[in-house]
Every structure is written in C-alpha cells, then in structure tokens.
C-alpha cells in the first residue's frame, strides 16, 4: 500500500510519456475538463451581488472580519503586545516544557499559510487589481486577525484529547461540541459539510495551486517542459512523506521554510532600500489605486475584490484551516491561542504580502502609459500589461530579477519548498476532515493520501486560470460554513476572553518570565 502513490505517479508519468506534444495536449485536455466540470461552481461562489460587480463572498469575509473586530473590541490592536509575550513564552508554565509551545503552533500554522499566496497570489492580485489591491489586502489582513482569533480560540476549546495523548481539533469539533453546548441543532451537518469542503480545498488550494505555481516557476528557470513532470516528482516526494511516513523530509522542509521566508523578507527589504526614493511614490500608487483603480478594469472595486480575494487566500482567516493547526498547543487557556493566532494574518499578509506588492510596484514590471500615468490594461489577458507578458509567480520573479539576476533560481527553490510545505500541511488538514467523515484506519487514510498525490500531477499539468479559480472556490466554501459557525459560537469566545482578561488583570494568570 505504501508504494501506491509512487506507483500511481509513475503510471501517470508513463501515460503521459508518449511525447512532449502529446503531453502538452493532455495538459490542455485536463485543463478543459477541469474548466467544464468546476466552472459552474466557481461562478456560483464568485457571483456578484445583484446590480453590482462586487462578489458576495468577498463581502461575506470582510463583514465577518469587521463584526469580529467590533465584537471583540479591536482585539488585534489591543492584544497585539500580549500576543507577542505569549509567543515568547512569558506566560508558559515551565512544567509544560516538552509540550507544543505557542511559538510552535504558530510556526506550523504559518508554514501552511506563508507560501505561494504571498509570492504568486500577490502578483495575481496586483496584476489584475493594480497596486490599489495591496491597500485592500492590508486592510483585509488587519481585520482578518480578529477572525483568526475567534476560530483558533474555539479550535483549542473544543478539541478532542484522546487517551493516547493525541490531540485533534478544528472547526468540525467546535461545530459539533460548541453547537451542542449552546443548545443549537445541526452541528454535525455543519461539520460534515465543512469536512467535504476541506477535503476539496486541500486538493485545490492546498495542492493543485501549489503544484501549478511550483511548475510555473521551475519552467521559467529551466525552460518550458510539460507540467506533469513537476507534478510526478512532487507527487513521489509527497507520497514518500505522507504515505511512506518518512518524516525526515518533512522535518527538513519545516526547518528550511522559515529561513526561506526570512531570506525572502531580507531580499525584499534590500530591494526596497535600494529604491528608497521611490517608496513614497509606490505607497502613493497603492493609495491612489485603492480608490481609483488607476486604469484597472473594474476600477476601485476591481482593486478591492482582488485585494480581498488574495488576502483571504493567503492568510486563510475565516477558512478554518488554522484552527486545525493551532489546536495542539498546550495551554489551559484556549483564548491564549487565539491571541497567538491573530499574529498569523499580520505576518502573512500585512508584512510579507505587502513586501511582494511593493517590490512589484517599485521595480516597474507593470507597464504604465507615460502620457496618462495610468496602467495599461491588456483586455485579452485580463490583467495589466507586464514586462514580457508574465503573470503570477513569474511576475514576482521578474520584479525581483530587476535587482538580483540570480533571484529567479533562488525563488524557484523557495517556491518549490513553500509549495511542498503547504502541501504537507494541507494533506494533514484534508486527512483530518477525511478521517472525521470516514473514520480512522490505515487503509482509509491511505486512500485519501493517494488521491492527494494524484491531484498534485493534475495541478501541475493544468493552466493557471481554472486551477486558481477552483482553489479559491473551495477555500471560500469552507469559509461560508465556518463563518456561520463562528457567528453562532462567538458569545462563547467573548466569555472566555472576558474571564481571561479579568484574571490577567488580577494576577491570577501568572507571568513566568
């Protein structure tokens, strides 16, 4: 059984090995099938509100983030310093050493979210929505912090602790247990629907989008070659880890990824410092574009929607995935993990995504009409005209290459590693949803893992458009269910928060450092 995904990947490779032309043809076939079968659902999720060109789903998430922000009294700003103290371990009981620390839960959750959303996703947003998308992305990130606070507090509060010491948590558990506690019906139905979307989201955004962009970056550096080759290689390596249980590969990735992230930030800062005199101009473009669109099709709303979409896709606030990752922390106070989790959208979106966006704007890879000062809209491509007509991760790569010619090669390595670590995280989230639905057991779990590996090949072979749309649609479907649950359960979080803040004030909750 352990050999299955590897065998499946090789089988896919063999089927496709008739020749490069046939493989390219197959790429297109997969793409077409994909667009045909998922198109209607994508259209439904991203449908505009009647009489506007504002999609209801973007509004859904923004309204949720605003409600949580208001309901918890701007917790993301008031509790920011306390969050950092918690991550530093100031409130961690020394007797709990050896257990999962706040830092570890945050780092693991971050390695699942920081990745292609920050590199490729931002490029897509800025390419379509213009620099103004950055502004809305930052706003969505800041408000999304309150959403993350809510879901991760609930994730810890209603997690399952098994006799063998394992811990399992996530929206499906707070939906069932939390609803029951509040005397609400329908918790299990919510949990089942959420799990179905999680499985599809894991296969979409947590898998195909990653494989797709990893291939785009690799073929940009190595020259064009069929996507299934990247897919097959990634599927084999992922299969070795998730089915074969060779944890050492995942562990190495988990260690390398944070350093890659830091390296990415450092390079971004260097580029920004080199163009120091243009930072003011870039921010000007971001603010102006946020409200006028600066020539982008759809104008202000185009920028806004792209910004919100990418922020949600990047930091996953409201989607529920983080609640799964954060729930293993050792703490007596669930709300502490909420505090820690609110740093996630901040690091992911407000810091890293903004860096990428600034570099793209500053390096001038988006073409501006010198006469009007407006961005040149390429209606055929559906985005701003760029140097070399690139989009997605290739656009980011081109922007960074303006300053450092070696950067595309470095970025290719980073993208593959980010993609890989995100896949490992999402294979876990997907598996948790799968076992929630079908029960635990080696055979059942391996079936999901094999499917997961096969989707890597499909994702790498398909074009960007249908994959990215399907990925977003699945993740946002998770958010629809999860946010309803969060509304119903937010009074519980408020009670937890009130009690915690009071005990913190009276000194009942001790500071150890």
């Amino acid at each position, binding site marked *: 059984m352990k050999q299955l995904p590897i065998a499946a990947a090789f089988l896919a490779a063999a089927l496709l090995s008739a020749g490069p032309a046939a493989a390219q043809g197959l790429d297109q076939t997969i793409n077409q099938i994909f667009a045909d079968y998922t198109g209607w659902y994508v259209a439904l999720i991203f449908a505009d509100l009647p009489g506007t060109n504002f999609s209801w789903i973007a509004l859904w998430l923004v309204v949720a983030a605003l409600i949580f922000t208001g309901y918890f009294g701007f917790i993301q700003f008031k509790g920011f310093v306390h969050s950092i103290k918690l991550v530093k371990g100031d409130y961690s009981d020394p007797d709990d*050493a050896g257990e999962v620390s706040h830092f570890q839960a945050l780092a693991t959750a971050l390695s699942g979210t920081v990745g292609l959303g920050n590199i490729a996703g931002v490029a897509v947003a800025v390419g379509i929505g213009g620099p103004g998308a950055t502004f809305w992305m930052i706003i969505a990130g800041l408000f999304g912090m309150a959403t993350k606070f809510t879901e991760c507090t609930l994730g810890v509060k209603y997690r399952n602790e098994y006799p063998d010491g*394992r811990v399992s948590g996530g929206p499906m558990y707070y939906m069932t247990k939390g609803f029951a506690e509040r005397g609400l019906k329908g918790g299990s139905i919510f949990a089942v629907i959420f799990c179905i979307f999680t499985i599809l989201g894991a296969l979409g955004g947590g898998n195909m989008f990653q494989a797709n962009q990893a291939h785009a970056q690799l073929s940009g550096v190595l020259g064009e070659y069929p996507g299934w080759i990247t897919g097959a290689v990634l599927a084999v390596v992922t299969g070795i880890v998730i089915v074969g249980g060779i*944890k050492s590969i*995942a562990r190495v990735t988990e260690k390398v990824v944070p350093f890659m992230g830091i390296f990415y930030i450092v390079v971004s800062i260097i580029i920004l410092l080199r163009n120091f005199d243009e930072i003011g101009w870039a921010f000007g473009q971001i603010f102006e574009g946020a409200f006028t669109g600066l020539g982008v099709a759809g104008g202000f709303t185009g920028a806004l929607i792209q910004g919100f979409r990418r922020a949600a896709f990047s930091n996953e606030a409201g989607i529920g995935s983080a609640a*799964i990752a954060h729930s*293993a922390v050792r703490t007596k106070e669930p709300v502490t993990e909420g505090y820690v989790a609110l740093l996630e959208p901040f690091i992911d979106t407000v810091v890293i995504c903004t860096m990428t966006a600034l570099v793209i704007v500053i390096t001038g890879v988006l073409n501006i009409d010198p006469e009007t000062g407006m961005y040149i809209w390429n209606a055929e491509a559906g985005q701003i005209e760029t140097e070399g007509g690139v989009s997605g991760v290739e656009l980011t790569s081109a922007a960074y290459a303006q300053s450092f010619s070696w950067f595309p090669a470095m970025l290719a390595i980073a993208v593959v590693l980010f993609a890989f670590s995100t896949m*490992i995280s999402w294979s876990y989230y997907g598996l948790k949803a799968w076992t929630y639905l079908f029960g635990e057991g080696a055979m059942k779990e391996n079936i999901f893992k094999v499917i997961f590996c096969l989707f890597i090949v499909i994702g790498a072979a398909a074009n960007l458009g249908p994959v990215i749309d399907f990925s977003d649609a699945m993740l946002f479907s998770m958010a629809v269910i999860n946010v309803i649950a969060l509304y119903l359960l937010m009074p519980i979080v408020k009670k937890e928060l009130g009690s915690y803040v009071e005990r913190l004030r009276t000194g009942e909750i001790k500071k150890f450092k």
Partner: protein
Amino acid sequence: MTSEKFVVAYEGSVEDSSLLSYALERARKEGAALHIVHVLEWSPYSFLTPEELEERHGRRKDEISRAREVILEPAIAEIEKAGVTCTGEIRYGQVVEIIAEIAGAQKAAMIFVGRSGRNSVSSRVFGSVPLGLAQIAPVPTVIVP
C-alpha cells in the same frame, strides 16, 4: 542528617557510568546526597510538522516514562543500593541552563558532569555541556573524564 547535596547531570550513556561511580564515591566520603538530573533536549522554538504537533503530548509522556524506566530509576537504585540518599528528576529544555537552575534551586554544593558529549561535532560548534556549565554554573563543577 545529610548536610550537602550534589547535582549529577546524567545523560545515561555508557560513558556516564564512570560519572555516576565517581559522584557516588564523593558523596559517600562527604556524607552528601545526590540529585540526578536527566535533561531531554528541547526548544520551544523548534519547528514541527502538523502531525508532530498532534502527537507531541503523547510522545512527551512516552519519552518521560522511557527516560524514567531506562535511565533515571536504575541510576537511583544503584546509588541507593550503595547506601547514599538519592533523588532524581527528568526535565525538558537546554541541558546547561536546566542543570544550573536546579543546582541553584536545590542549593547544591557541587555539580558533577561527564566530559563526553553525545555528539562531538555539534559540541565543537555550539559548545559542550561541561564548557557551558563552566561558564554559568552557580556552584563548583566537576568534569569527570
């Protein structure tokens, strides 16, 4: 009535048997009690996979009970058999910091530590436990070859 306490930083390796017998001999001569500390190297800032997070609590329990059964309890039994009062504890963290902290908390008169490290390459790069203790130990420290 025992007047003094010695802390023994005990790794549990084969080389550590000479550390244990030397500490025992000194304790017997001085009429001191021994406190054996076994530290499981751990950093709250290390990176774990989601699956490792899920299993961490259970693994910690296993690691502690294994260390107690295989390392700590046999050592305590050996020392008590020789007629010296002995206690022990298992802790998670950085060895040097934990040993120094316990020596202070227990008001120990001395620390005993083996010279050999588990990994000589990393000890050359990052500094070994005896060298670390030499810098921060609050009480005299004996390095046993």
